[in-house]
């Protein structure tokens, strides 16, 4: 089995990418939220529960520069999501055998 990194770049309110990824990602995979995908990381938004349900068997990351661009640094993120930079993004791609972008 390949270890997988799932990339989500669409707002969870605007596109079903995150929802489909959470349905289809194999346990042990990682999910990185980038671009408008970072809105899913907000603790108080509607999708926290869906992410919470898979917090035990998936790892979640969010791209810090995209969080800052959208003015979300003053908002609490969901507990357990790690904030990374572009270098961390590269490391995740290296550490997982396959990267799948859900567009």
């Amino acid at each position, binding site marked *: 089995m390949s270890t997988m990194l799932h990339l989500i*770049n669409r707002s969870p*309110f605007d596109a079903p990418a995150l929802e489909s990824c959470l349905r289809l990602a194999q346990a042990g995979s990682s999910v990185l939220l980038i671009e408008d995908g970072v*809105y899913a990381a907000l603790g*108080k*938004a509607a999708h926290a529960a869906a992410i919470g349900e898979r917090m035990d068997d998936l790892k979640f990351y969010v791209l*810090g520069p995209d969080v*800052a661009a959208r*003015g979300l640094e003053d908002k609490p993120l969901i507990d357990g999501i790690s904030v990374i930079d572009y270098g961390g993004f590269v490391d995740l791609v290296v550490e997982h055998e396959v990267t799948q972008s859900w567009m």
Partner: protein
Amino acid sequence: MEPWEEDGPEVVKRFMYVNRKAPYGTIYALECLEVVLITAAFDQDTSVVFVDDGVYQLKKNQQTEGIGMKNFSNTYRALDDYDVEKIYVEQASLDARGLTADDLIIPVEVVTTENLREIMAQQDVVISS
């Protein structure tokens, strides 16, 4: 008096711009803002609505250095200079995203879904993006 005011069209219509997309992920927010400013410069009766992910456009504290894109959120402050005073944000859209009016970069009128239905139904031209 600006040059266009002298020769500008005399008809005044009610233009409404409905912003439904987040900023930066796509250009629609920025390019819509450019149209809003031009519409105001043409002295039209201009309203701007933020619903759905559009409310994110007004989030305070945007810092875009890290993504290499231009931060255009301060341009919303120019709406006032252009006499665009009808700025509406749907309460339900804020609520769904865990935001309040305090999170926004400019003062807006927060309206109920029912209010917004009525406001939208009073326009002559509606452009949504």
